[in-house]
């Protein structure tokens, strides 16, 4: 039981490390893609698009 607990503690630490590293990396993804997409949202299309009614403008 004690051994099991020790194994769990080690696994938990590995998971925490991977998780936190992943969170930091994901935050970089969020920042870069958010800025990029926000620009897209406000910029107009060069080509004809579809309006809210679903018809081509």
């Amino acid at each position, binding site marked *: 039981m004690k051994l099991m607990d020790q194994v769990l503690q080690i696994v938990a630490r590995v*998971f925490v490390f991977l*998780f936190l590293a992943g969170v930091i990396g994901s935050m*970089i993804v969020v920042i870069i893609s958010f800025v990029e997409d926000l620009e897209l949202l406000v910029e107009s299309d060069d080509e004809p698009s579809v309006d809210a009614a679903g018809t*081509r403008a």
Partner: protein
Amino acid sequence: MSSGSQILSPSNRVRIVVASSVALTFISFWRAAAIVLNDLGSSAYYVGGIAEDAFGRSAPWFILGVMLFSFAVRAVYVESCSMFVRGGVYRVVKEALGGTLAKLSVSALMFDYILTGPISGVSAGQYIAGLVNELISKADAHGWVPPRMHALFHGTPHLNVNAAAVVICLAVTLYYWWENIKGIEESSDKALRVMQITTVMVVLLLGWAVVTVMKIGADLPPWPTPANLHFSETSLGFLKHTSLAHTFGLFGILMAFGHSVLAMSGEETLAQVNREIAHPKLKNLKRAAIIVAIYSFLFTGIGTLLAVMIIPQRVPIVNYENNLLAELVMWFSGPLLLRLLFRTFVVVVGFLILSGAINTSIIGSNGVLNRVSEDGVLTDWFRKPQKKYGTSYRIVNLVVGLQVITILLSRGDVNVLGEAYAFGVIWSFTFNSLAMLVLRFKYKGERGWKVPPNLQIFGKEIPLGLLSVFMVLLTTALVNLATKEVATVSGIIFSAAFFGIFTISERVNTRKFKHVEKEMKEHFQLLHEERIEREAVGIRPDCTIVTVRDYNTLLQLRWVLQHTDTAEYDVVVLAARLTGPGSGEVDLSTEQIFSDHEQTLFTKCVSIAESYGKHISLMVVPARDVFSAIVQTANSLGAARVVAGLSTKMTSEEQAFRMGQAWEAAPPPKHQFVFQVVKPGPEVQSFRIGPHNPDLTTEDVMLVHRLWLDARRQAGTEDLHHHDIVTLALTRLASDYSRDRQSVLKELRGTADGPIGKTPARVGPSGTPLPKPITATPPTEPKPQ
């Protein structure tokens, strides 16, 4: 069809053109965002209560964290959509990770889809029952409840919230089961309207909450540190007997994150709507994705934060865990009546959005299972069309049956459902991100966009962003296995059952496919085309398209063959293969299996053609909407007419109306054609689709002529023609119509009630009735017009 017969020479075999691209009507990014938000936004109603119940009042911070992280998951979905890998979840994951993991991935996705219905329905039921109890208790406080009711309930009358939730959820699920059996279509109009109403509610909710905070003052929830995490025994799951239950440290953050991951359920809908998004596709997909991300961050994230800030700590969580937003409204500052009215509004919106999620879950499950059946992983027994409505009723029955069992087993407990639901959500995300990570190295084809950042080391690209997202998802999924007992047990049983079904089906299908392939090759020449182009498929202009679905009702084909000289005009038999929204991201491919039903259908069509000694071409198009597929094919082939049998679920006028609507929505170039519906008798009714000269009665022509004659007698009218009379009349009508629409409409309605109204109302492209049938009976020698 004899399997032992010799393979015919290519010239003798009937050609089946299989279009691989789905015929879609495109939607704007606003509509796409609305569809996704209908699914994603619904979690705002239950995730806050579930998370707070699991680990305490710091829950909003984790939900905000999950909503921020969902921006990154969204990026993975955008990359997956920007790739041009053919196939649905099964084929994409199979290409990256192999068949076993692909089947597991689909099983997890099915678990996610099937649980979406019960959790949404039960949550809607909880909100409704909570509101009813609140109204009764307020009425009781005013002495409006009769004493007899008091005696009956041994106090204030009230509903058993969980039991009421089960009944409401079952009622809504069974309603949508019947709608799906009949063949309901997921309308982006409806989704947009629901989201417009939801937006009004969200703005009022957040605005009123902020005003309340400013007025009464409120503390932020406890910070998301290990010391502030208070896990319930249930939320520790299998870990409750280990040392981690007491000394979890930073691991607790990971556990709490796992309990909040439900907040981003629905993100996968983004992949479903991708194929329908209008040009420029990638740009609009990213726009839809960012709208979804911002909206859900505000609604689910900030909404939950404000709820925990405003609802006093002294109120036990058990009082409001399944009614978080409703409870929040009751603690707003303002008159009670106004708060009750707004709570009713919140509940009505919740019912709309949550019951919509039940429908989405049935449609999504149906789409995914249809798709895996086409991919040969599920036997085509499931795809047999319903006799009257043509829907894959066996799949719908299976999905709804599983949902009903889940609802009954949950006994109306949202927490139990939420725990199980998280299993499907996190594992389907994990499989998808793993597949994308592997495809970065395996797939060298075109890719519209990549999740940033990507490092270049010794000429090799390291997908740092994708790897990071995958690490978060994988660790969360693994930790959830340990902390969510119900989810782990039910998820594993469910996935194992589906995995078993898929594995056995695949073996059966592999054997069958070889046989089918041989039979198809014997009698049919399969020609795969990305899109239908008239020249490429060798069809002459002005062909006749005959739509077929049920091999028992092919009267329309007999009628067309009887009256068409196929030496002069081609007859194209068109079968639309319906693909649900769950498979909206995918195409038909060469390897896909023709079901027994389709084989019988084609064989019968060929037999009929042979009995008339005439040649036909067969065509299969995948479609989300049958009418769009027919119109797009008619346009691509330059067809002069489209002939269909009478629908089992609509009149010929309604069929023509739907055809007209599809024509209006179709992208240019498009041209007019005649749509004919063959009824038993046979009786044929014809409609013109697209702009066309109106059918004038003799009286109309005479009136124009008399007016022209009279005007012509006057001086200065030497150049007057009949069309000038019509032009003037129309110009005046248009002017009257813009000035006084109602009275013009009244007159037009009066006209329609007259002699014209006596004939069956027929419908033009814009839905206006045509004066009278072009052809009342079958022509003796019909020629395509």
